[in-house]
């Protein structure tokens, strides 16, 4: 299964759950911010030095560390239904 860390800049995908190793409270926060199942997330860009990546979801932009993004699972790539931002 693909995860958010593998999403290249410019690409969109639908969120499809979290990895089991992710602490529940961290998963909860990510969901509160908009990383909920079925939402479309877009990778905006990567920061220099292999740092965090910027993702657009729910009309806002967030920088996520790669080791966190790797726990966000993605469904198959699809159209832009609900892909605001």
């Amino acid at each position, binding site marked *: 299964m693909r995860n958010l860390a593998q999403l290249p800049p410019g690409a969109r995908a639908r969120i499809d759950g979290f990895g089991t190793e992710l602490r529940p409270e961290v998963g909860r926060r990510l969901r*509160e911010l908009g990383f909920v199942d079925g939402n479309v997330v877009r990778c905006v*860009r990567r920061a*220099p030095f292999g*740092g965090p990546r*910027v993702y*657009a979801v*729910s009309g806002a*932009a*967030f*920088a996520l560390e790669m080791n966190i993004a790797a726990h966000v699972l993605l469904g198959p790539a699809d159209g832009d239904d609900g892909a605001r931002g």
Partner: protein
Amino acid sequence: MTAPAADRADVLLVGNPNSGKSLLFSRLTGIAQKVANYPGVTTEVRSGHAGRLVIHDYPGIYSLEPLTLDERVAIERLEKALADPGTKAIVCVLDATRLERSLYLLLELLPRARAVHVPVIAAVNVIDELVGPSARLDLLGLSSSVGCHFIGVSAKTGQGLDQLRATLHHLDREPPWDERCVVPASIEERKRLGRRLTRAHGPRGDVLLRSQERLDRVFLSTALGLPVFLVVMAVLFQAIFTWAAPLMDLVKTGVAATGALVGGILPPGLAHDFVQDAVFAGIGAFLTFVPQIFILFLVIGALEDSGYLARAAVLLHRPLGWFGLSGRSFLPLLSGHACAIPAMMAARTIESPRRRLITVMVIPLTSCSARLPIYALLIGGFVPAVSLVKGLIGLQGVVFAGVYVFGIINALLAAAVLDRLTRRRIQGRLGDAPFVVELPPYRVPGVKPIVVAAASRSWSFVRRAAPVIFGVVVVVWALGYFPHGSGHLEQSWLAALGHLLEPVFRPMGADWKSAVGIVSSFVAREVFVGTMGTLNGLADAGEHLTQLSGALQLGGMGLASALALLVFYATSLQCASTLAVMRKETGSARAPLFAFLSMSTFAYVGAVVTFQLARALGAT
């Protein structure tokens, strides 16, 4: 909150980080308060009056489930206030340009508030940025769909504030709730509702997000990100050292003139000497660098408000990670160049407790502005004023920059060492929160809020530091004055103490006067210049650094000793306030004790090595 519950009308101001909540608070209450565009800057609850209402500004939160320390503090206090009968209403601040995301907190807050019959008002901020064809905001539609007041406001322009005030004043404690508006319980359902509401009543498209992405292409790019960052930092330091100079001269002149005026009135004797040498000389030397702190707060405020600081945190997260720090350590380390105290408090936003501890402990290694007069004295007086590169760069300037770089390198190396030391002790990263930073839209910062905030931060710094410094100056003055009075310093108690300590400091090239200066500055390092002035018979040393360095040279001090002192002051932790705040921020006396002992040791060893090395290389 002293009035009895029945007469009280408390209003709780809550919202996401970066929603413009603090600026709205300033607008409503008129109290100068820190307003910033960096997530999580407000770590204290601030209160102020708006008519008969008392408004409490809570730190920015994303939800009622805490993840970091500052969130936990905020949410605990918020829940307590929510249960308080004096609480009349909650104002939940939303960002019109990021409506979907801001609705979540409102939807989480509503059921809790309804359970205790506290009305909620949704203040949709930043409506001034809603322009163009996609800028729709149907407040009535939102009000009837959600079942609470929606008011469009702009904290920047003041738009809609009268309506917000009027609504707050005429609010009944138990308004007729629209029971049809049921808020779902699960996160997913709430997010979905937020999206539906935004689609039905909010702005269309995401114009702001697109324009912010265009700017991020520069500020977060691999090729340009770092050069731009370095330019921003260069401007910042230029501002502190060049733009602050006229303000500093103004303060100097003012203090000197007042001192002369008061000194002229008093008859000669103990009182005259005390006022002239202890009060004006001591406090004057300290007040002189307050403008520098003010300018630093001003520039940091502008960076925060513009949205750039969040980018800097993202840009530096990985490089700082190599030293066991976080991208969020950047702001505290930067602030440390003004003063360690607000810097340590800014570290509360760091997501990982271990990285936060490391950040707090290394902040005192960055060159705070209290060290500045010492650097100015030693570099100006002892480093030859030769120019390099065909007159473009002065050697003194290079040494000056070098001391700052020295401090930064020390901080990073210390962080790396602490990282190794604590990795084994603090088990794993279980307590660590993830590094998730919201990138706020870029905004042109408002001049007035930044100036007001910088002034209020500077003032609280002065209030905190001045009493300590004054106390030390008085003690040092008294030790140097008695038992024989003015002009008999060589026979004073202070001289006796200095001679006693001289052997300890001899290996770093310090004479008895420097020894007294070092010892007296263990409580507050800024005392050093004043003490050296007193010891060399110059009343207002802070204003006449050249004269003082001349006197020091006559006393036999050379370049090697000066460089050793420079290294000593760049490394040592001589600040009682810093130790006290570090204790409070880390929750134990162990961190400040460890920091004090290790930094003092490194300072001493470093100074001895510097002196011996400089002597061996031929410096006098």
